[in-house]
């Protein structure tokens, strides 16, 4: 893709730079002692984004977004990385729930969009369960019709940001217990409905990013069903693909770039322990994330994305972060563990996050082998 900026793209870039210059508070990462304080700051940041008309640059204009094209999306990442600007707390609402509502929601359901855009409504994703992780179609949380309501019972796990969220997009079983993918539906649930309990789970970093959410006779209006009853799985599949797509990976890329830039600043100060060969190797790998993401964005615009390519980007991006984390231990330990503060260690723990969440690396490899390389299937490697 030849990147020559049109006047409109140039204006997009300049507006964004001016906005970030004005609004990003340097040092925001280290200012807050607890995850709850950080969460509160990130909730505020959603409103700052909204006031600057930067909360949903990738949404189409008909939903009051900026309709950013592939190049503008890349500009957005580039500038976000350069200014080390926060991502906010509603990424699931903006990037996961919103596209589903745009494509499959009723008019009433689409009225959530304005509140997602303004930061009034934060959303979380209630998919995984204790016995349905990689094998997501094994979910058991059940929704049963009763009069004008669904009655929901069951347990979700690893629900990120539920403690800050107002709503959850919930995956429920509406078909028979053994109906697998054919009996799954999507229901929108307000988290202040009686019968819901949210219990934080401590992460590897000792903070409570994710939660267990239990549902005990939770009553939700029938009209909160998205799409057809038992027709949730095809919708979820496309959402999962987006979750591995360019937007998500570019957001990770901004994190990885920031950490790597810290490593190189350290290397400037300690020539004996800089390991330039390793810096060069990691630099080349991190640099390449953006090339893969740009290719995917470009293909999206040309309608030329083969099934499974998102998995390559997700695998490449997240494994690159994981190996950068490993290299911090192997090569730049002095920086990370002796000199570095708590923040450096948290980044290191975080390097394990994304090879597990949003579909593990092993699941991505299965998808690449099956969909892109069309290798013969085996029961043992489902899906």
């Amino acid at each position, binding site marked *: *893709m*030849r*990147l*020559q*900026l*049109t*006047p409109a793209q*140039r204006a997009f*870039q300049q507006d964004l730079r001016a906005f970030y210059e004005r609004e990003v508070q340097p040092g925001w990462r280290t200012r807050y002692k607890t995850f709850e304080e950080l969460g509160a700051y990130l909730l505020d940041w959603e409103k700052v984004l909204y006031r600057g008309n930067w909360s949903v640059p990738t949404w189409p204009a008909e939903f009051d977004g900026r309709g950013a094209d592939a*190049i503008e999306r*890349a*500009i957005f*990442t*580039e500038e976000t*990385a350069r200014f080390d600007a926060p991502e906010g707390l509603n990424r699931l609402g903006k990037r996961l729930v919103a596209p589903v509502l745009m494509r499959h929601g009723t008019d009433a359901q689409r009225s959530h969009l304005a509140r997602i855009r303004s930061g009034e409504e934060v959303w979380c994703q209630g998919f995984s369960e204790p016995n349905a992780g990689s094998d997501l179609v094994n979910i058991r949380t059940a929704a049963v019709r009763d009069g004008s309501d669904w009655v929901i019972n069951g347990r979700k796990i690893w629900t990120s940001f539920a403690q800050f969220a107002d709503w959850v997009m919930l995956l429920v079983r509406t078909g028979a217990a053994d109906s697998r993918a054919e009996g799954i539906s999507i229901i929108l649930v307000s988290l202040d409905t009686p019968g819901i309990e949210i219990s934080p789970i401590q992460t590897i970093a000792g903070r409570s990013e994710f939660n267990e959410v239990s549902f005990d006779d939770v009553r939700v209006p029938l009209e909160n069903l998205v799409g057809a009853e038992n027709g949730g799985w095809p919708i979820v599949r496309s959402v999962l693909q987006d979750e591995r797509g360019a937007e998500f990976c570019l957001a990770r890329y901004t994190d990885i*770039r920031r950490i*790597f*830039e810290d490593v*190189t600043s350290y*290397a*400037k100060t300690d020539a004996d322990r*800089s*390991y*330039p*060969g*390793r*810096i*060069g*190797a990691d*630099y*080349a*790998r991190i*640099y*390449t994330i*953006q*090339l*893969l993401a*740009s*290719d995917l964005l470009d293909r999206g615009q040309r309608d*030329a994305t*083969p099934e499974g*390519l998102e998995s*390559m980007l997700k*695998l*490449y991006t997240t494994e690159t972060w994981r190996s950068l984390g490993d290299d911090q231990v192997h090569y730049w330990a002095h920086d990370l563990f002796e000199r570095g503060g708590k923040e450096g260690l948290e980044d290191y723990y975080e390097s394990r996050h994304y090879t597990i969440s949003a579909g593990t690396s*092993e699941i*991505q*490899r*299965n998808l*690449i*082998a099956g969909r*892109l*390389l*069309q*290798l*013969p*299937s*085996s029961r*043992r*490697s489902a899906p």
Partner: protein
Amino acid sequence: MRFDDLLDDWLETDDRELLDHFGELITEIVGARLAPDAEPGFDDMAKRLARIREQGWLDFAVEKDTTDTVYFEALKRLHRRTTPLAVPLLEVWSALRVLSRLGGSDLLERTLAGECVTVLAIDDLLRPGDGSGTGWIPFGDGATVLLAVAAGDGVDLLQVEPGSAAVPVSHPDPTLPAFTLSPASTTTVGHLDRAGWEGARAEVLVAQAAALAGQAQALNTDTVAYITNRVQFGVPVGSFQALQHRAADIATEVYAAQQVSIHAAEALGAHTAPLALGLLAKAFVAKAAMKTASEAIQLHGGMGFTWEGGTHFGLKRSAYLAMSGLSIAECEEGLGRWAIDAPELLWAGGLDDRGKRETMEDGTA
């Protein structure tokens, strides 16, 4: 869409047709696979090169309307085959392009006219010595050799006549017999200043990266086909998850290597730090290609260890390209030192005015 189509579908139709045509021509010229005891000679090679020249593919490297994208893509096509070409076209094209930096020379004209075969001594361009040709110089016994020696903060380019004390040296790729030289006399062809030398080195590194990306792609395609068809335990071995995951990993590396090489080709001309870009391209692609080649042999089982199976040709060509000039580790180290010294790192966006000269669509800067 098949994985292989994915690696080509980004090209403009005209360019793709041109390159398809080039690929077919080369396939026709490659000829029979080499036997273990065969020693490819200079004369046969020169005949093949003459056919390439007759079809207009020698001038191609230095023609005005050959864009960098198409030039480097042609190098990829050249190497996207399981039986490598027994012609040092990368070294010949590189010599032509280095010579064209001098703004015309007698040697350039004579080479284009088919009066001599000129190859670039890649090691000496990247690590200039004292004027003896030290690295692997393919067909250095019969070719005219273009050598670089350090001069000021650039290099002098020297011309060495065919056969100047050429000594055969062992070399990974049996299709490209290599020599070192200790020439008694040389002729100075010209001088490259610091920027010219940097540009020439970057271009050779990007050329090697393109060739390696093509070679890796061929090995990947061949391996996927092999494990799809080879049956053990009553099922294709490609249905075993252990192999599927390894295939997925190398395919991901091949795809990434392809993207790096396309980016380097596009960005090189206007880049503010071309050598860093060249180092990055070679470091990345050569590593991916060596991993692919190594896995390709393993996933072919015993067949991978035979001469007849042919997978070794790709492994050896990859090793030659990866080792000649600068090794993978030297590229990584050079890039890392550059990154540590740079006031700010450059990133691929091309959207960032530190990374690349930008032009508006109307051409204003």
